[in-house]
């Protein structure tokens, strides 16, 4: 049995689907962020796997993942800062309750 590209893409796909499900259904903003991380992660896997299987002589996919991780880190840090700030103001991290800025 060979480990094909396809076999790596299946868990990645399911991970992405879970991310989507979580993003749409969760109400806690941190949970939404977690779902977002899932999706990001699945994309990272895809980059790496495609790179490794299709263009083994290059490292573009890997670097892309590397940068994605860095950006994800930055983004998470910022998002969590905002969430905590929102929590300070609203005493809540429920996305349905945070409607103060809405028209």
């Amino acid at each position, binding site marked *: 049995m060979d480990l094909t590209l396809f076999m790596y893409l299946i868990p990645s796909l399911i991970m992405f689907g879970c991310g989507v499900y979580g*993003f749409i259904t969760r109400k806690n903003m941190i949970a939404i962020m977690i779902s977002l991380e899932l999706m990001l992660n699945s994309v990272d896997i895809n980059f790496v796997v495609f790179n490794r299987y299709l263009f083994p002589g290059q490292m573009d996919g890997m670097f892309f993942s590397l940068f994605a991780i860095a950006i994800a880190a930055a983004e998470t840090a910022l998002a969590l800062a905002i969430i905590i700030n929102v929590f300070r103001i609203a005493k809540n991290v429920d*996305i*349905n309750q945070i409607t103060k800025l809405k028209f």
Partner: protein
Amino acid sequence: MPLSLAIVVVALPLLMFLFLGLVGVKMGRKITGVIGVLAMLVDTVLAYGVALTYFFGSGQGQMVDGVRQAVVVANPAWLSFTDTLVVRMGVLVDPIAAMMLVVITTVSLMVHLYSLGYMSDHDGNAEKGFQRYYAFLALFTFSMLGLVVATNIFQIFIFFEMVGLSSYLLIGFYYSLPAANHANKKAFIVTRLADLFFLLGIMILSYYTNTFDFDKLVFGPTMSGSLETAQSAITTAGGATFLGCSVMAWALTFIFIGGAGKSAMYPLHIWLPDAMEGPTPVSALIHAATMVVAGVFLVARLFPLYVLVQGAMNIILVVGAFTAFYAAAIACTQSDIKRALAFSTISQIAFMMTSLAVSSNQNALIEIHEGYGLGYMASMFHLFTHAMFKALLFLCAGAIIHAVHSNENDKMHGLHKYMPITSICFLIGCLAIAGIPPFAGFWSKDEILVAAYQRGLGWGIWMSMVAGMTAFYMFRIYYLIFFWKKHEVHTHHAPKDQPWTMTLPLIILACISVVAGFVPFHDMVTWDGKELHTALDMKVAGTSVLIALLGIGLATVMYRKENPLPERMANAMRGLWTASYRRFYMDEFYQFITHKVIFQGICVPIAWFDRTIIDGFMNWMADATNSVSFGIRRLQSGSIQAYVYVYLLGALLLAAITMICVLL
């Protein structure tokens, strides 16, 4: 004395107005009054100088071949509509203008002097607003002088408006009083309505003749009053007609309506009795002697045109004759002496109007017979004498009102003992207006009756009857004020003759009323500038004196001493009496038209329409846009999860479509 001084005569009151209005309010009250009187005295002297120079001086071209010419002293352009249609602000001196200068300045001077006393309390302190009062008097005098020296019809219109304004301001002098407040509004709006017609008349007239100037309309190139010029003016209009009448008839009728508004002809008379809310000297000046004859003056000014347009002249005749009777009938029952005098004024002005109108007749164009134009002369004569004795009567009434603090004659009675000078002056006025020789009224009224009889027996009898009524109601007022019964002293000090500032004008005017009839009007003020030969028609004069005496006699019987006769007669004719007392319900009628029909029936619905329909439509458009955008807003919910969901579905849909396409 050069005629160009007429400019000064007109301008001086304007300067006084500006001076008193701008500077005077900072000065003491009494001093402004004195300044006003002195300025008016100067003005009067100048006006007399101009008039005497015009009538009796030589040179300066006022007399050519025995025909008096109109002299244009100055005529600068003021407002150019087109190259030919130019409004000028000029000064023109001709017989009627010169006569009016005299009338206006005389009465105005008397009123200025009289007001020094009248507008003060019993301790001689001037009232609040004294400066304003004198400023307005000056403004009025200016406007009236400007009106009579007008060189063109538009200038007359302008000064019509100006006198309307001064009248408005002076009626409303006591502006805190609701009645005064209401009266001045009414006066202005009614005369404004009439002026609208005046304006339309001018528009029509000027369109067809292409000029405003009297020298083109009525005087002709040589400036002598001529039928030929007027005829050419009318020919210029061509045969243009509107609704079957010639445009000239329309124009002249409209212009007459303008004059009727100012001269309080029926049915535009309703403002004049209310205007009595103003201070009494103002009533004497404006609403008895000068402004109210502006309409008569206007018709007289355009007389050569009117002569040629019989339709318009007949309207004037009917309106004038009816108003004379109507106002006299009302005057017989009024209890407010100023209102009674006001109706008397209306009646007398109607006399003048009628007199103007009778002097034309059907064959005027064919032959100008001896004595033609008598009515014109009589009208102007009566205007002159009436101004004097009516001013006298009003000033007397003012003195009485000042003494007893009431307008109602049941607060007066038996004042003869307390105010002998006033009583005698009033009596002279009454005799003059009743037409008893040798007082002024007799001469002028006699000429009017002669002219009326010349036009037709019916008109003559009608006017004689009104003359009789005049004698009756004037003496009714006289008796009710000065006799009837003993005066009950209500106030803590008994009424007495007023200070000299008020009595002197009475005496002067009384003297004028006695002698004014002997002014040789027939060779001074005629419509064509030529001398008019008149003789005293003993038949007419005799009957008119007889009728006047009859009226006086009746009044003496009824009102000399307190008796139940008037009451009984009033009861006998209750309906008629009440109708007359309520002025035949004209005010109620106007009230209904203006308030119920125009205000409630037109203005309120229009305002509603504007706010609800027009503005409602605009708001509806805004609301519609708003609700549409509120509907769309739901799509832009701000919920990131919904966005992701929709985005995802969209992406999937696209992917699915792509896939299907690839597979197919």
